[in-house]
């Protein structure tokens, strides 16, 4: 049984008289331990898809199953197993960390959730916070400080620590390194991949950057205008793209050739 089973997922955003088809009949499976890239330009439906998979939004039609259980359109109180197992790292740590909370409280937030506590063995929250801060390479005294005291890369480490706190099985990284300076992007990416390896996590890696996805994910799906237009092993998408949109994405990657 696949870990995630997404069937005919459609999401229409209706604002006043305008209707936007953000996700158009998308089906997808994710296996346990898989690292799947979700590629496409902004507005292609990547974020909508992962929000629905994490049941942070309700689909217009279609279903999402996690571990064999339907999670789409289910009341929040019945989603403890999903909240404990699926965690998010969002794009911009400047907006994904509450500026008025200390890092310790931010990272402990999933541990304080009554939904997650029902699923997970009780842990000493302070010890667990220290543990995950250490795992992402932040000093222990970070817990008493505020997000604005950290650099962009460090803030994203805080967001990663928060995601790891409840010992999830799945990490959804939504453009998790795109907002970072190029100089720290590789560091954070390596950290993320190291943790995924060590902890045996399933990874959904959302990015508009095919080059990064090629580094990180053996498999990928390519999205355009709310649809999955192509999917398969990342190497094959690179070497022999079948869909013209994939070909365009591949061609758009800047190539640096050494002069010889």
């Amino acid at each position, binding site marked *: 049984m696949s870990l995630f089973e997404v069937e005919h997922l459609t999401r229409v955003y209706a604002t006043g008289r305008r209707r936007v088809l953000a996700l158009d009949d998308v089906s997808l499976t994710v296996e346990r331990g898989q690292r799947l890239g979700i590629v496409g330009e902004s507005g292609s439906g990547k974020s909508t898809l992962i929000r629905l998979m994490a049941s942070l939004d309700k689909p217009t039609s279609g279903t999402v199953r996690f571990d064999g259980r339907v999670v789409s359109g289910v009341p929040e109180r019945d989603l403890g197993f999903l909240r404990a197992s699926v965690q998010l790292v*969002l794009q911009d740590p400047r*907006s*994904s960390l509450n500026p008025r909370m200390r890092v310790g409280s931010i990272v402990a937030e999933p541990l304080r959730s009554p939904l997650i506590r029902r699923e997970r063995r009780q842990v000493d929250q302070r010890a667990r916070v220290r543990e995950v801060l250490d795992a992402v390479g932040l000093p222990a005294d970070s817990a008493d400080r505020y997000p604005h005291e950290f650099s962009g890369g460090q803030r994203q480490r805080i967001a990663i620590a928060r995601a790891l706190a409840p010992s999830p099985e799945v990490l959804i990284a939504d453009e998790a390194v795109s907002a970072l300076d190029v100089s720290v992007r590789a560091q954070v990416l390596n950290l993320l991949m190291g943790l995924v390896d060590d902890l045996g996590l399933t990874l959904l890696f959302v990015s508009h950057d095919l080059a990064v996805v090629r580094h990180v994910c053996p498999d990928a799906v390519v999205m355009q205008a709310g649809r999955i237009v192509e999917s398969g092993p990342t190497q094959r998408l690179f070497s022999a793209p079948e869909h013209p949109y994939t070909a365009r994405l591949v061609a758009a990657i800047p190539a640096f050739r050494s002069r010889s």
Partner: protein
Amino acid sequence: MKRAELWVGLALVTAVVAMALVSFVWTPFDATAVGSGPRLQSPGLPHVLGTDHMGIDIFSRILVGARSALYVGIIAVGIAALVGVPLGILAAWLPRWGAEAMMRATDVAYAFPALLLAILLAAVFGASTETAMVAIGIATIPAFIRVTRAGALSVLASDYVLAARAAGTPAPAIAVRHVLPNVAHLIGVQASVSFAMAILAEAALSYLGLGTPPTVPSWGRMLGDAQTYLFGHPTQALWPGLAIAAAVLGFNLVGDGLRDFLDPKLREVA
């Protein structure tokens, strides 16, 4: 520039608070005893601001009047904030039709004149400081609902609330942990502006005889009493007028200054 406004505002507010506190332990003369001095004295000694039509020392009455002003402001703003802030957060959470219904109801309440409400309450429950405070408080609720909802909407759309939801944080905890601290600066600004309006409203109600009873010193009532003698003794109206203006200006300046000072984004740039 903005920082200077905040300091001037704080100085005025501190002065009003100090007057109220001092009046508890000391006033130059009894602020309520009729005939403690000659009537309608001009400023001089021993009555620095003169005496009113009943021979009461005006400076003493101004000091004690600060109490009424602050009392009314605190209770009225307290009522408005305690009711308005939770309703504002709720309105941000409701589905579109629910929020729409609530905000239209708020608009109707907003359009209802505070003065009319005060007259209504005074007619039913009798004119008193308490009736005036409650009336002003109720009339100020819509302002708090609007401000809180606007702030809460932007917080609820933020990534950190999304992350909190993914972390299984229940709605009440999101409201307390994320929404409240991040709209507190807006509420603080609204509170100080509303405080100024409450003081003005209390003065107006007392002037009309719908607020503080005659025995209790109040700036608004002093102004009303002074009106009779406006041509013969114009300074009678000057002092309570100045006191009201200073308090209102002070709280408004504090509100303006706080808006800039408390906004973390503006501060980060500075």
